[in-house]
């Protein structure tokens, strides 16, 4: 009998992390197949390769905490618990989507789980997240905000303004950089001189930690540390999760700017299989159990997509609603 993986850790946590990752991977696969097969058409920014980061940070949050993410946010949204069908429906522009189909794939929100913003403007989620954290600070209930963004976002002014404000105001904010190696088509080494995004924390006198973003428990532990600190009034933390973007920037990206050997190595070490091996070899899951989780996830997403494809698009009466509440309309 091999020594169990993570002997100090509750096995349900480990299995839940695996289930979350499997669900993200299944959803990504089903969507890419549907786009390839011509069933659906959308600009799709695959998060494949970053599923461990999402599963890890989401497990560190509580109900009532807030999340802000980006257009490459499917993994974050699923991990945080946005219901699958409204999420897919929004991506497909259906009336039953999270935003009645009026926001689209880059603008998923679901306030019930604290997802207040998914933005398509790189870096711009950070100031908004700072404001959410300020509101939480004023409410005084120990809630935190986590903002997810990429390495490319750390070069834009909004990142720096928000990091500085969060530091000065000691906001309960976790700045989670999912460093996936590329800002659009430019590798990290081509867009910043510093070796580690976490080094930027020093400029704001806040903690900065770098963690293996392809290891869900490493992310869980790092983000838990940051969350605990924020809840206790200790202010923000910059967490850099080093991960990899396995399918490039947007669906159809031929990734001609990526060294094939680098990409092959990334696939060799892809997070879902790596974690599965760890759980199986450590006796947390059997092969059969792991397979069943993947199959259940795929079946769930297949069924959801088939269903949502039958949902109607928003009717013309939706065109002019929700611009403002004037006159007198109240949310």
């Amino acid at each position: 009998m091999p020594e169990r993986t993570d002997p100090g850790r509750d096995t349900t946590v480990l299995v839940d992390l695996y289930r979350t990752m499997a669900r993200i991977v299944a959803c990504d696969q089903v969507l890419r197949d549907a786009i390839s097969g011509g069933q659906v058409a959308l600009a799709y920014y695959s998060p494949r390769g970053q599923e461990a980061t999402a599963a890890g940070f989401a497990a560190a949050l509580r109900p009532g905490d807030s999340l802000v993410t980006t257009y490459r946010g499917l993994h974050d949204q699923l991990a945080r618990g946005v219901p699958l069908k409204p999420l897919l429906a929004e991506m497909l522009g259906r009336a039953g989507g999270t935003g009645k189909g009026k926001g689209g794939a880059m603008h998923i929100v679901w306030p019930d789980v604290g997802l207040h913003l998914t933005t398509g403007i790189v870096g711009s989620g950070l100031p908004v997240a700072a404001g959410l954290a300020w509101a939480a600070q004023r409410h005084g209930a120990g809630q935190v905000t986590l903002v997810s963004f990429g390495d490319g976002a750390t070069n834009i002014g909004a990142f720096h303004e928000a990091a500085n404000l969060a530091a000065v105001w000691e906001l309960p904010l976790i700045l989670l950089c999912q460093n996936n190696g590329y800002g659009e088509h430019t590798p990290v080494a081509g867009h910043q001189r510093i070796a580690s995004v976490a080094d930027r924390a020093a400029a704001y006198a806040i903690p900065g930690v770098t963690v293996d973003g392809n290891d869900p428990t490493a992310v869980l532990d790092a983000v838990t540390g940051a969350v605990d600190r924020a809840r206790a009034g200790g202010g923000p933390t910059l967490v850099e999760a080093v991960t990899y973007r396995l399918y490039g920037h947007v669906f159809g990206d031929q990734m001609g700017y990526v060294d094939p050997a680098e990409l092959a190595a990334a696939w060799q070490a892809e997070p879902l299989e790596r974690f599965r091996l760890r759980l199986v070899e450590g006796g947390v899951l059997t092969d059969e159990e792991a397979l069943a989780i993947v199959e259940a996830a795929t079946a769930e997403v297949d069924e959801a997509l088939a269903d949502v494809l039958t949902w109607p698009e928003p009717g013309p009466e939706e065109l002019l609603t929700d611009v403002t509440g004037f006159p007198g309309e109240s949310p």
Partner: protein
Amino acid sequence: MTDAPTPTVSVRAAITRALGEALAGDERVVLLGEDIADPGGGVFGVTRGLSTTYGADRVRDTPISEQAIVGAAVGAALGGLRPVAEIMFMDFLAVCLDQLANHAAKLRYMSGGLTPVPMVVRTAVGGGLGVGAQHSQMLEAWLTHVPGLQVVVPSTPTDARGLLHSAIASDDPTVFIEQVPLLSFKAPLEDRPVPLGLAEVKRPGTDLTVVTYGRQVHDALAVATTLAEEEGIELEILDLRSLAPLDTDTLLESVGRTGRAVVLHEAVVTGGFGAELAALLSEHLFGQLRAPVLRVGATPTPLPYAKSLERLALPGRDRLLQAVRRCMAHPG
């Protein structure tokens, strides 16, 4: 709220008073901006006293970070607060327009109504103060071009207080424009609400409607008095107060009745809000107009520093008078 007699106060004092009333009346109301806390209370003293009374955690100084200020206001609004952000000069909107135009304005729509953004941005315009091109420009047309934003420009203490209360109470983002030369304008402060989207006829007239807002309302009233006394021409002065939402009904009723309109605003004429008004009037009143709708505004230049040139660049009573005469000269 006060009893009679109606006090005469400045626009500045009316805004300060409205902010204080909002802070006192609703725990969710918070203020943020550069140097808004005491002892300064903002570069123009508009927030003076508020941090002392309501706490520096509710009237909060920020770094010089306009994106963070407006973005944090968006986030605070999403998080259940009613933030009132101050952007020191309207020209600085250029460094935070993403948060206003792509976030504050669009989040309600893009979420199908799940995430309205109840926030206010107060911002000052220094045209006429001799502070040069980067601290002087009226840019309301940038904002009215973005669906989802509300834009108001008060001309009196009563409107300033009333519109600010309406903006704070609104569930949608509102930009509240404070023209600095107007801050010291004093008038009786009437205790009445001023809803968004409601224009006011400041002076009834029969010959021509001057459509205006903000401090130019007072220029228009002065010209109207002169013309009535000296030439018997009766101008109707319409103060829009709220550019978005726009009181189209009152606008069309007034110009439909007089048959002539001159739009007067401080902003550059080219691509200004006056172009929208002129287009609306021609679309709706083509057969009733007795003359082309004329626009009076700033020259198409960055606002010059020298007093001699600034006076020429900004629209004054002379230019309004000329436009009115041109309009009246049409036989109709």
